C-alpha cells in the first residue's frame, strides 16, 4: 500500500491512472486545476495524453473523441465549465460513450467565489444536457480517500453503462489534504473493493440494443465494423432516424439501463438510524462529515439523532428515506437543492427542513442546536433569505 498525504485533486488523478485513463483534456479552472496539472505530469509517464483544450466544449469533445477511439478518458472542471459540458455530455450520453467528468463545486452562480466550497450543481448534474429522455449517474465523494475510490468506480460504471459519469466533488474535497492510500497488490485492491472494467469493442451489427442491458461493449471506431455514432436518434445499427418508434426504444434504453440496474450504482452510509431517531440529517460531500460528527455529539447529549450520507446521488436513492422523522438537509447552498428530493422521497407524515451554508461548512454545534430545536417542536432560525421549512 502506498501511503501519501495529499489532496483530493491528487487522489482523483491517481485513481484515473489506476483505472486505466489514457487521455485527459481539460481547461484550467479553480478548484479543479490541479487535476489537469497532475494529469499533465502523470499521463505521459503511463503512455497517455494530456491535451489542454481551448474551452470546456472542446475539452469534453476531445475526451469523447478519444473514448470513441478506445481510450479511457477523463476531464475535470468546476461549475462554470460544467455548464459548458452540456453539449458534449449529451453527445456521449446519446451515443453511449464512456467518459468520466469531475466537477469540483465552488460558490456560485457563475464565477462566484473560486476558492470556496459550494453545492450548486446538484440538479445540474441530474440534467447536464438538454432534451430529456435520460437518467444520469453521479457519485459524490466526501474525503480524499473517497475521491480516489469513487473516481475508480466512475470509470468502472462508465464502461458497464456506456455513458458519462459525473464525480460531483466540492472544493473542500478537491483542495483538502488528507491521508491517501493507494493499493499496490491484488489483495489490497480487493480489500478496498475497487473495480476496474476493461474497454471492450462492439463489433455490431447492432450497436444500440433496445434493452435495459448493461455490459454491452461500447462502440469503438477504427475497427472497420461499420459502426456509426451520432447525436441523432439511432436505429439499432446507428442509422439516424426520424421514426418515433426508435426514439421510444432509445429513450427506454437511456432511462432504464440506469433505473433497472440501480443495485450496481447505489451507495450510501447511514449512522444512528437503529432506534428510529427523531431527527435525521441528510447530506453529501464534505458537509456530510460535519453531519457525522454532529450525530455523535447529539447522541452524547441524549438527543435521538441519525444521519444519511449519500455517496451516489443520481439515480436518487428514494429507498433510503423510508423512515418517518424530521429530516434536515444540510447543504452548501442557500436555495436548497438536495432538500427538494428529500421532501419528495420521505414518507408523507415526515417533516423536511433545510440548513444551508455557502463557502464554509456548518459547525457541529450549529447542527446539534438545530436538532434540539426540531426535537422541541420549534422552528429553525433561518437566515433572512433562507426558507427553513420544506
Amino acid at each position, binding site marked *: 500500500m502506498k501511503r501519501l498525504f495529499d489532496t483530493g485533486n491528487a487522489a482523483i488523478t491517481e485513481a484515473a491512472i489506476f483505472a486505466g485513463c489514457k*487521455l485527459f*483534456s481539460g481547461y484550467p479552472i479553480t478548484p479543479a486545476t490541479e487535476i489537469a496539472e497532475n494529469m499533465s505530469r502523470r*499521463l*505521459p*509517464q*503511463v*503512455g*497517455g*495524453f494530456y*491535451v489542454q*483544450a*481551448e*474551452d470546456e*466544449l*472542446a475539452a469534453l*469533445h*476531445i*475526451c*469523447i*473523441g*478519444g*473514448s*470513441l*477511439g*478506445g*481510450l479511457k*478518458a477523463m476531464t475535470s472542471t468546476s461549475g462554470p465549465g460544467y455548464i459548458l459540458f452540456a*453539449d*458534449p455530455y*449529451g*453527445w456521449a450520453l446519446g*451515443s453511449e460513450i464512456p467518459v468520466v467528468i469531475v466537477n469540483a463545486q465552488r460558490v456560485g452562480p457563475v464565477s462566484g467565489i473560486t476558492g470556496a466550497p459550494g453545492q450548486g450543481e446538484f440538479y445540474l448534474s441530474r440534467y447536464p444536457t438538454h432534451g430529456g429522455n435520460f437518467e444520469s449517474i453521479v457519485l459524490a465523494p466526501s474525503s480524499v480517500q473517497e475521491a480516489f475510490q469513487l473516481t475508480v468506480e466512475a470509470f468502472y460504471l462508465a464502461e458497464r453503462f456506456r455513458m458519462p459519469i459525473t464525480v460531483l466533488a466540492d472544493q473542500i474535497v478537491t483542495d483538502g489534504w488528507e491521508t491517501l492510500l493507494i493499493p499496490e497488490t491484488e489483495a489490497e485492491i480487493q480489500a478496498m473493493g475497487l473495480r476496474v472494467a476493461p474497454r471492450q469493442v462492439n463489433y455490431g451489427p447492432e450497436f444500440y440494443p433496445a434493452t435495459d442491458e448493461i455490459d454491452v461493449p461500447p462502440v469503438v*471506431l*477504427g*475497427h*472497420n*465494423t*461499420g*459502426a*456509426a*455514432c*451520432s*447525436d*441523432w436518434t439511432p436505429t439499432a445499427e*446507428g*442509422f*439516424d432516424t426520424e421514426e418515433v418508434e426508435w426514439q421510444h426504444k432509445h429513450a427506454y434504453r437511456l432511462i432504464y439501463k440506469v433505473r433497472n440496474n440501480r443495485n450496481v450504482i447505489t451507495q450510501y452510509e447511514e449512522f444512528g438510524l437503529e432506534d428510529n431517531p427523531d431527527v435525521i440529517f441528510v447530506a453529501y460531500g464534505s458537509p456530510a462529515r460535519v453531519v457525522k460528527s454532529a450525530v455523535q455529539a447529539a447522541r452524547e447529549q441524549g438527543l435521538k439523532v441519525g444521519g444519511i450520507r449519500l455517496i451516489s446521488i443520481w439515480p436518487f436513492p428514494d429507498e433510503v428515506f423510508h423512515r418517518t422523522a424530521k429530516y434536515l438537509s444540510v447543504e452548501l447552498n442557500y436555495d436548497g437543492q438536495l432538500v427538494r428530493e428529500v421532501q419528495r422521497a420521505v414518507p408523507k407524515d415526515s417533516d423536511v427542513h433545510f440548513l444551508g451554508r455557502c463557502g464554509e461548512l456548518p459547525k457541529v454545534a450549529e447542527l446539534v442546536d438545530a436538532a434540539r430545536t426540531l426535537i422541541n417542536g420549534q422552528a429553525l432560525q433561518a437566515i433572512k433569505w433562507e426558507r427553513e421549512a420544506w
Partner: protein
Amino acid sequence: MDYLAEKFLKAKKIPSTACSGCGLGQVHKKVLMAIDELGLGSADVVWGTGIGCAGRQTFNTWKGDNFAGTHGRVYALATGLRLALQPEQKIVLTVGDGDAFGIGLLHLLHCIRRNVDMTVIVADNFGYQSTGGQYGYTTPSGSITDSSPYGMQDPNWVQDGRDILDILKSAGAGFLARHTSVEGQNAVESIKQAINFKGFSLVHIVYPCVTNFFGKALGSRKPVDAYRWLKERTNPAQDNLEGITFTTGVYHKALDKRQEFSEQMRKFTGNVQKRCQS
C-alpha cells in the same frame, strides 16, 4: 455514382435524403472518387460529419466507421479520436460552411494550430439551408435570405478583401484548396492531395442549394439556373472576372511540414516514459 456507391456506401443510405437537384451529391461523389483513386478502402477511412445539410446527408453513408458530432465541435472530437486511431488511418470530415466558419471556427483554428491529421471538406451552400435558408459566413453580400429579407448586410468571410482561407493559412494549415461542385477532375486531384497530406488539410467546395439559397437569392429553383450561375463564376484559370467569383485550385500547400499532432504526442509521451525509467 453507381460504381462508387456500391463500393463505398451503405445501401440503406441510397438514395440520399438531399433535395433533388442539390449539389451536395456532386461534392460527395468527388470525395469518393478521390478515395477510390487513392486506392483506399473502408478500413482506411473514418468518416465524420457535423449537422446541417452536409452532415445529415453524408452521415453514415460510408461503409466503414462513421460519426457525426454536434454542430461545430466535430474538429475537437476528431482531435481526441486522432490520438486513438492508427496513424495511417485517415479521418475525413464533411461539414457545412456554418459548422466550419461560424460555430466551429474556434475549434477549427485550434485543430489547425495543433496540426491534427484530418481532411475537412467544407461543403458550402452559402448559408443555413437545412433550417430553411438563413444567411451565413459565405453568403454573397446583399443576398435575400429568410434572415436577410432586405439583402444581407452582415460582412462575410469571403468578400471585401477577406478570405477565410487566409485565416486558416495563418493559423498553420498545411494544405488548403477551393473548388466548386461543377468542377471535375481538378477538384478530385485537390481532394486526393488533401487526403494524402499528413497533417491538417481542408478543401472548401461551393455547391448550389436549389431549394433555399437559389430559390430565394436568385429567384429560381431550377437546377440548371443554379449550375449555370455557379459555372459562370467558377474561375480555375484565375482570370480577372468581375463580381462574385470562386477562384479555384490549390490555395496553399506548405513546403515545410509541421509535425503532426498525434505523432508529436506519441513521441513526447515516449520520451517522458524513457526519461522516467532512466
